[in-house]
C-alpha cells in the first residue's frame, strides 16, 4: 500500500500526524478493544512504529495507514495474550520443580509467536496436520489416525503447509 508520498521532514510529519489523528486513533482502538489502557498503549505503539518506519512525511490517507498498523498490533497483542495463557496453563500441569526461568519462558513465547504468525492463513485441517507431523513428530499414519483422515490427506496438507511457510519466507 503506497500511501507514503514525501520523505522530507519526517519528524515534523510525525508531530502533525500525532496532533491531528491520535485522538481519532485512540477512539478507533477503544471501539475495538474493551480495555482503555490497552487502547492507549497500542495507540502509542502505533506512532512508535510510524516513527521507526520513517515514513510519516505526508500521507494521502493517514488514518488508513494508522489503522493498518494499529490492526497489526491488536492482532499481535491477542496472539501474545492467548499464547501466554495457553503456555502458562501447560506449565501449570508440569511437576512443581519444572519451572523454567523468566528468560526461558520469554524465549519460548517468542518462538511460539513466530510459529503462530507463520501459520496464519492456513486452513484448520492443514494447520492441525502440519502441527501433528512437524511439531509433534508423528508419522503420517499416526497423524492420520489421530485426526481421522487418510494418509494421503496428511501428505497433501503437509505439503501445503510447508509450501505456505516457505513462501512466507520469501516475503
Amino acid at each position, binding site marked *: 500500500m503506497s500511501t507514503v508520498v514525501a520523505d522530507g521532514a519526517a519528524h515534523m510529519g510525525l508531530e502533525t500526524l500525532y496532533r491531528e489523528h491520535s485522538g481519532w486513533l485512540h477512539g478507533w482502538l477503544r471501539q*475495538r478493544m474493551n480495555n482503555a489502557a490497552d487502547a492507549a498503549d497500542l495507540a502509542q505503539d502505533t506512532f512508535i512504529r510510524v516513527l521507526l518506519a520513517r515514513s510519516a512525511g505526508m500521507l494521502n490517507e493517514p488514518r488508513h495507514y494508522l489503522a*493498518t498498523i494499529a*490492526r*497489526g498490533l*491488536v*492482532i*499481535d497483542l*491477542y*496472539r501474545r495474550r*492467548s*499464547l501466554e*495463557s*495457553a*503456555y502458562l*496453563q*501447560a506449565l501449570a500441569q508440569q*511437576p512443581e*520443580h*519444572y519451572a523454567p526461568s523468566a528468560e526461558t519462558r520469554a524465549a*519460548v513465547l517468542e*518462538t*511460539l509467536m*513466530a*510459529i*503462530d*504468525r*507463520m*501459520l*496464519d*492463513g492456513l486452513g484448520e485441517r492443514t*494447520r*492441525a496436520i502440519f*502441527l*501433528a*507431523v*512437524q*511439531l*509433534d*513428530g508423528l*508419522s*503420517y*499414519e499416526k497423524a492420520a489416525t489421530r485426526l481421522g483422515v487418510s494418509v494421503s490427506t496428511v*501428505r497433501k496438507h*503437509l*505439503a501445503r503447509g*510447508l*509450501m505456505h*511457510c*516457505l*513462501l*512466507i*519466507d*520469501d*516475503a
Partner: protein
Amino acid sequence: MKAILADAVNWYVRLHDSDVDEATRVQWQAWYAADNRHAEAWARLEQLQYRLGNAPRGAAQTLQAARWDRRSAVKALALLLGVGAVGWQGYRVSPWRADYWTRVGERRQLTLADGTRLDLNTDSRVDVVFDAGQRLIQLRQGEILVDTAQDPRPLSVCTAEGDILALGARFSVRQDAGVSHVTVATQAVEVQAKRMSQRLRIDTGYSLSFTADSFGPLRPMEPDAQAWVQGMLVSVDWRLGDVVQALARYRPGYLGCSKEVAGLRLSGAFNLDDTNVALASLEDALPIRVRRMTDYWVRLEPSGLG
C-alpha cells in the same frame, strides 16, 4: 523458484514417509545434485525444520489451545482478521549451519543437505556445519546414529575427545563425561583422539571407547546397540541396575534402583516411548516393586519391603 520449492516439498514429504525405499533416496539425491537451485530450495526446507525444531515439547497443543481461545476473542473483531504476518526476521540463521536437539525421552530423524541420515537419541544436541570442503557434525551431548551419504567431501563427527572420520559408514557415537563411544554397524571409521598422534580404524561390528589421550580395547558391538533408533531397548542377560540406568536416560527426573535388587539378571525388550510400561513389566517379571514419590522420582525396590 516457486516450482522448485514445490518440488523440494514433494521430495521432503516422500522422504519422510515411513516406508520410503532406497530407490526414492537415490532419485532424490540425483534431483538434489542436478541444480544449485535445488540445493538452495532444500536448504530452505532445512531452515524451516530447524526453526520448528526450536519449539518446546507440547508446542502444538499450546498453539492450538491459543488459537481456540483467540478465536472467541476475535469473533467480536471480525475487522481484524486477514491482516498479514509481521516481522519474522531474526529467525533466519546462516545457510549451512544448523543445530538440532532432542529433549529427554525424544528421538528425532533428520536428512541432511547431502542425504546423510542422522538420528538423535534422547537428550542430544548436534551442530551441523557443511561447507565446500567438508561435512562436520559436532556432537555436543547425547547420542547419534549417522548413515553417511556418498559425497566427495569427507564427513566427520567431532566429540569433546576427538574426531571420527566416516569411511562411508553407518555408525553411532555417544558423548559421555570425558569419554566418547563409537559403534560401527557397516563399513568403517577412523578415530583421531585429541591428544594422540596415531589414528585407529574401527571396522564393521566393533565398538570403541576413547578419551582425549587413550583408546580403550576394540570390542565386538552388542547386537542390539542401535535398537534405540527403532524405539527399543534390548537387554540380553543384563543386571537390573544396568537396565534401569539405560531406561533412566529416556525419562525426566530420577529413576534408580536399590542395591538389593541391582544384581538381578534379566533379558527383555522395552519400548522407549513409554518407560512406565517398561517399569510395569519389570515389576511383573521380578521380585521388585516400583516406588513412586511422583512421576519424577521413581525407585525399584525389593517387593518384600513394606
